[in-house]
């Protein structure tokens, strides 16, 4: 899966979780940039990403996530 393909799919996940049809995220996007991205939605997001990409992250990895770029790097690392 290419970087672009991951982003295409990931944007779909973000739009579903945050119920925002026009949402586009990038490497530098953080929780502050997306309306409704609180700790509650964060758990929903992680579960949705794991399901959608068929990957599992460790607890430590999830805790260390700082922005969308981190999520993409994790997906790339896991989905080989």
């Amino acid at each position: 899966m290419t970087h672009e393909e991951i982003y295409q799919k990931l944007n779909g996940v973000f739009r579903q979780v945050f119920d925002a049809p026009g949402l586009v995220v990038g490497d530098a996007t953080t929780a502050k940039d997306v309306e409704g991205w609180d700790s509650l939605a964060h758990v929903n997001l992680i579960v949705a990403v794991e399901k959608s990409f068929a990957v599992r992250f460790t607890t430590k990895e999830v805790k260390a996530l700082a922005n969308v770029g981190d999520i993409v790097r994790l997906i790339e690392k896991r989905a080989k």
Partner: protein
Amino acid sequence: MLKSDRSELDYFALLKKAKELPPPAGRRLKLALLGDVSTQHLVPLLRALLASNGVDSEVYEAGFDTVEVEALDPASGLYAFAPDVVVILQAIGKLKSSYYESTGDRSTFAQTRAGEIEEVWKAIRKRSGASIVQSNFVLPYERPFGNYGLEVPDTLHGLVSELNREIGLRARQNAGVLVNDVDYLAAWFGRRHFIDEKLWALSKSLCALELLPEVAQNIVDIALAAHGRAVKCVVLDLDNTLWGGVVGDDGLEGIELGDSDETGVFRAFQLYLRELGRRGILLAVCSKNDEAVARRVFQEHPGMVLREDDLAAFVANWEDKATNIRRIRDKLNIGLDTMVFLDDNPFERNLVRQMVPDVIVPELPEDPGLYVRAISEMNLFEVASHSALDEQRATLYREQEKRDEERSRFESLDDYLKSLETTARVARFEPRDLPRIAQLLQRSNQFNLTTRRHSEAECEAMMGDEAGCFPFSITVRDRFGDFGLINVVILRRADSALEIDTFVMSCRVLQRGVEQLAMNKVFEEARRFGCRRVLGRYIPTAKNGMVKDFYDRFGFRREAAPDGEGTSFALGVDEYLPRQVHIREVAAFPGREGG
């Protein structure tokens, strides 16, 4: 309650649905969530699932791990919220830590923990009339001894099993406490899917997010049952549902059943249905068949488990099933939304779904060996109470048939009523009657003037209030059999007037003079209390139209209701003419009614 299958239990779909719900308005169910797990993820699920059941809701979340504090502090947010239902959710996580950190004698661990849980219930019940929905614990997967652990005392697994058993036993002894069997859900879906260590570490989630809707649905099932939602009747197709083949074509000897059913699945299904009957669910037949041919199977086939005596209604003809289901509804005098229809034929299922949408129509799998599983997965038969009367319900309907036959022999209603030799016990609330009283208050919809769903605990409180309250019930029998406790009236003193807070009667005893007997009693009590007037109230609902003129018929005058809830009525104590009834009052019944 699910209407056809479990497909509506998708986490993200429910989340979306919850977002689109309007804010709660008007009459709503108030749920309070307490727990040593995070409850935020549960809130939208509960609201969405309650909305699917036509119930508006408001949810209060206590702080994380504040169960005891909220319960014991009379000034806590819990009591300020005034919940209808308190949901207590406890995960294995905290329990596990306290077990591992304990040293020395662990043999009292389960009893001690169960005692603490019971103290919380008692504290809540003392300050609130809310029902309590207590979770049990998911059995842990750790096995330090392997299989041999079952032979070792005081393992974590053994003590959690003991604790779960203890929660059930103690719930039985504490009115208004219902168990949320989370361990059953975990076992059914598999603990390896249910338990989610990462989500526990990240957000103290009770379980995997995708299974959280199952927990929410379980809570909704219990909460709705506690507020009167209950299936009363299962309507059964015959050919290819109760037996294999078509009796009209294959003949009595040709159908697959008993010895001629190699798989034994139809016998197993009938055994399950008979068990439902024994637990108080009415069974009815609705079949496209010649009635005599269909009945003969029940009368003569050696492989039948169900017999005519197990059935409250039998409709076999060539009309459409929607019409026949309405006919069964009329005969049994129950609501369509309390009926479940089981039919192997998808065409009939869809027809009933479209023509009588209130009826619950489970999707049945093609393999009849999976019927019981499909029905069990929907948890259709949740209840919040159980009394001996439930088990006699089918008998009650058969006794009614005999009365109806008798009735046609009499010229006048009076003669008929006299011939029934009806006796009644009118009694102030007594502890032994409370479960049945609470059940009647929760379940009655039609002959119910105010539809105030007082809980068992509230009834108990009224029972103790000798000066301000006269709550009574009427138990009836006649020469054909027992009706049991079928009328509840709650009177409250309001200065120089006596107010009828609640007047509820089972529809089984209409036009027998029971309501007249009860009203006579109301005015006797008004005199005893020294009241000058009796006040009544009718609060209309979708189902209680049959009593809208109830107070008019007793000569009450309509008043403007100051608080606007329904219609108020009043009648002077001296203006009331006691009604003549053909019922003999007795202080107690001999035999099974006790006393």
